[in-house]
């Protein structure tokens, strides 16, 4: 445990180092920052890895006159899985971000050290969230995480859009914290102290009403952070506004703390009733389908990726929902399949989503625009970025031999096994077509992104003048890509990583994962390897056939029209149009037609339809109170007098026994 804390200390020291060594010595500061941060992540990660390897949880109690009683920290297998993802992705994002910030500094931005300091704080806070074992430490770390995220989101606060996104984020995150306060307060009323152990001990004595309240409040509080529909509305604007390496960490990791929270509550409560499982499964389905549908409608590459986070949180929730149903219907195999799928998808999504965000960051840095309609043909100009992006895209659409496939395969199996039971839980099998629709739409969407941004020819000068970012900068992203391929080609690795936690969540003690999963994992390796081997073989055959002739180079066939321009290419809007028109108003696309042009806008049904109108109404109501605040002293004295009189009247007449 001390090793873990030392690691966190090093991460914080990295941020402070960057803050101290700045200005003209900023390059040295960058070096200090990267080295300390990487060593810190490795140190803390080693502690988490040890927990998983030995199966022995760590714990540390700090006694003393701390607020909220003793402070308890601990790492069990659930924390360890999240820690490995947090620290690995965090280090990759930090290294990528340092290069990004150095480029910004070269363009004259000063306070890059502040971004680095906040980033290190954020990383340490997330690690502390999953290691906290008392309410006070948990909520404290949660708030530090929320605030440092806000600071990072508004890093480019000179843009009005960014400030607005930051504000929406801040409101959403504090609503979430409020729900968490309420949840812990309800729960703690039955417990002897603020520690998680005491909460777990109090769980059986919670009344039915209190249990329902705790489960619903957890869903709201952690749900805002995880960002499932309809609590997602803050997520796309915030993730689009933040610097790319911050978006990568937020989408890959920060929203996963919501998933961590839900799983932790499940562990402490020792399972949830069936209605909660159905609710989570339903939220997962709606979040998955709507998330990917809204992603299709986007023009901004980072907003699009952010909506895909909503979609993937949906897939994760489907897994967790199936797992919870398995527990409540006493079907351990279903529970294990569901939780394994949900948890592994959490790890996988952390890897490929941060990879994709780093790719979009490289594109933004090279072109200065995030609008896909202005890009095109970047594969030639940015070959490494393209390689990383296309691997990430194949991973997120869930095709072998990439990692996204493995976790979706597990969720499918969970849904299917639920369908085999004789109880009402067999209705969960109807989630199968939903998941199939989600992955089908995701394939369409990523064909669109990868094709429109990287393939074809440049649509504007932004894209045609793009210069690949220096090779060293892109190494972190390539490391993430390698992890995606490794976990996809060797599913046993990923499944082994989560198996201890899955057993704990399913409440099955020392029983191993179901045998079909173990054998299936090795068969997926076989499928992956034979796909690779067969492709190589065919590629060599093709080369041998082609050797007799040299390939001729001609312009693309355009029905004999010989002056095609880049503007004639299919655009991202036209690519998505058939799918969006099928789903009609659900897709949230507004179309503006004039005699010469047609524009489509993507609007968010929840943000533009519910949250902002509600906000405006609250605002108007608050404005009506403004008349009370005139800033004149005699008025305030009058108020005080009036209040006193009312109180006196109450004492005189109201409180008569």
């Amino acid at each position: 445990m001390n090793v873990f804390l030392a690691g966190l200390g090093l991460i914080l020291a990295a941020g402070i180092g960057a803050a101290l060594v700045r200005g003209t010595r900023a390059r040295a500061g960058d070096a200090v920052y990267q080295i300390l941060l990487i060593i810190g992540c490795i140190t803390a990660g080693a502690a988490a890895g040890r927990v998983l390897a030995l199966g022995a949880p760590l714990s540390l109690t700090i006694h003393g006159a701390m607020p909220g009683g003793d402070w308890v920290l601990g790492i069990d297998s659930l924390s360890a899985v999240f820690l490995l993802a947090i620290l690995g992705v965090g280090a990759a994002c930090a290294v990528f971000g340092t290069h990004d910030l150095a480029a910004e500094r070269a363009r004259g931005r000063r306070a890059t050290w502040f971004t680095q300091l906040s980033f290190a704080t954020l990383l340490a806070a997330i690690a502390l969230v999953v290691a906290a074992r008392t309410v006070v430490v948990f909520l404290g770390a949660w708030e530090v995480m929320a605030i440092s995220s806000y600071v990072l989101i508004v890093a480019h606060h000179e843009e009005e859009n960014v400030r607005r996104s930051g504000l929406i984020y801040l409101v959403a995150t504090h609503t979430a914290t409020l729900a968490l306060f309420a949840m812990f307060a309800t729960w703690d009323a039955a417990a002897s102290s603020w520690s998680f152990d005491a909460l777990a001990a109090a769980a059986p004595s919670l009344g039915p009403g209190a249990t329902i309240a705790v489960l619903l409040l957890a869903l709201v509080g952690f749900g805002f952070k995880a960002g499932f529909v309809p609590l997602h509305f803050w997520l796309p604007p915030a993730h689009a506004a933040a610097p790319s390496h911050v978006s990568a960490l937020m989408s890959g990791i920060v929203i996963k703390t919501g998933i961590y929270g839900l799983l932790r509550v499940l562990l402490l409560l020792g399972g949830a009733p069936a209605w909660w499982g159905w609710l989570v499964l339903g939220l997962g389905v709606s979040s998955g389908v709507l998330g990917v549908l809204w992603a299709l409608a986007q023009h901004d590459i980072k907003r699009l990726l952010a909506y895909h986070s909503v979609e993937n949180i949906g897939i994760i929730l489907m897994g967790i929902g199936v797992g919870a149903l398995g527990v409540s219907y006493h079907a351990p195999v279903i529970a294990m399949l569901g939780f394994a799928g949900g948890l592994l998808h959490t790890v996988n999504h952390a890897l490929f989503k941060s990879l994709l965000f780093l790719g979009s960051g490289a594109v933004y840095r090279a072109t200065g625009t995030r609008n896909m309609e202005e890009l095109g043909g970047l594969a030639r100009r940015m070959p490494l970025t393209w390689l990383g992006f296309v691997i990430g895209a194949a991973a997120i659409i869930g095709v072998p031999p990439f990692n996204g496939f493995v976790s979706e395969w597990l969720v499918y199996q969970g849904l299917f096994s639920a369908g085999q039971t004789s109880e009402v839980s067999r209705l969960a099998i109807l989630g199968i077509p939903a998941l199939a629709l989600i992955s089908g739409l995701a394939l369409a969407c990523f064909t669109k992104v990868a094709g429109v941004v990287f393939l074809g020819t440049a649509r504007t000068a932004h894209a045609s003048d793009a210069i690949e970012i220096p090779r060293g900068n892109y190494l972190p992203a390539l490391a993430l890509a390698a992890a995606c391929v490794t976990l996809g080609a060797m599913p046993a690795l990923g499944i082994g990583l989560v198996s201890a936690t899955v057993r704990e969540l399913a409440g099955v003690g020392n029983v191993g994962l179901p045998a079909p999963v173990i054998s299936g994992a090795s068969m997926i390796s076989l499928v992956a390897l034979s796909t690779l081997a067969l492709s190589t073989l065919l590629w060599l055959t093709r080369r041998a056939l082609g050797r007799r002739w040299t390939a001729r180079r001609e312009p693309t066939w355009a029905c004999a029209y010989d002056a095609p321009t880049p503007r004639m290419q299919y655009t991202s809007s036209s690519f998505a149009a058939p799918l969006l028109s099928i789903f009609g108003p659900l897709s949230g696309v507004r179309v503006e037609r004039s005699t010469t042009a047609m524009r489509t806008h993507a609007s968010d049904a929840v943000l533009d339809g519910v949250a902002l109108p509600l906000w405006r109404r609250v605002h108007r109501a608050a404005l009506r109170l403004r008349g009370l605040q005139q800033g004149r002293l005699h008025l305030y004295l009058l108020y005080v007098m009036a209040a006193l009189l009312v109180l006196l009247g109450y004492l005189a007449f109201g409180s008569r026994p």
Partner: protein
Amino acid sequence: MTDSQSGVSFTALAVLLIAAPIIPGVASRTKAILTGRQGSPVWQLYADLWKLAQRGTVLSTRTTWIFQLAPVVLLATTIVAAALVPLDGRVSIVRFAGDAVAFAGVLGLGRFALSLAALDTGSSLEGMGASREVTFASLAEPGLFVAFATLGVIAHDFSLSAMLGDAAGRVGASGGAGPSLVMVALSVFALSLAECSRVPVDDPSTHLELTMVHEVMVLDHSGPDLAMILYAGALKLGLFSAILMNVLVAASGQGKWSFGGAAIAALVASFVGMGVSIGVVESIVARLRQPKVPLYLAGGSALALFGLILVLR
């Protein structure tokens, strides 16, 4: 799996690899006979593949490596998918719980690669084709999975070998799942027409780029690349005919043949049957207008869904 069974599985795969190109030939021959035309011979696709393999390639100046890699990936993934399907009606070469997901997954990888290759050319026509292809595929996918889920519930196992092998037939006949199986068969046939780009969703014989779906995606491919794409298309037709045949056999309530030669004969018969059915459909049905295609796919999926509800009840 015993050695003789595995021998039959590998033989069945070899038969698929050799005989699948006959399906489009049979389809066009059927069409020719029904419409009273001379028509091309049944082995036309073999001749085309042979010719294309000899030819050189023309590459668009705009394209990158993905354009050349895509046909290779498409063919490789189709062959891997074939290894997951019990072509002999009993067991597949590679089988595991949930291999149906892998089947859809590898086909998805091939489609992803080919759609990217289409966008790589920067041609508006090919972009349009890719857009339509992924649109229709993403709507066909849920239906296909419902069909798999129904078969899986009947067979009590989520692997293709159980769904399409013995188990479904045995349990289906005794458990009264016959109506479900018929619905699944109809649904699989409807969806396979979409998956394999045939009428009423797509028309491989159209000559106008604007009306094409699959064909327009591969406009710029030539020589061995085009041969690989055409061959992969024929293999996919063969895969779906094998799946359909097994569902129909299960629905008929007959037990499976125990003799390897009969399994191979049934596979070849399914190719001919698929070709003839496609030919008949293309002779009597016009292609749907594009906006109607989603309705057609939803209808096909709904059939499978009814089947699923019947067995869940």
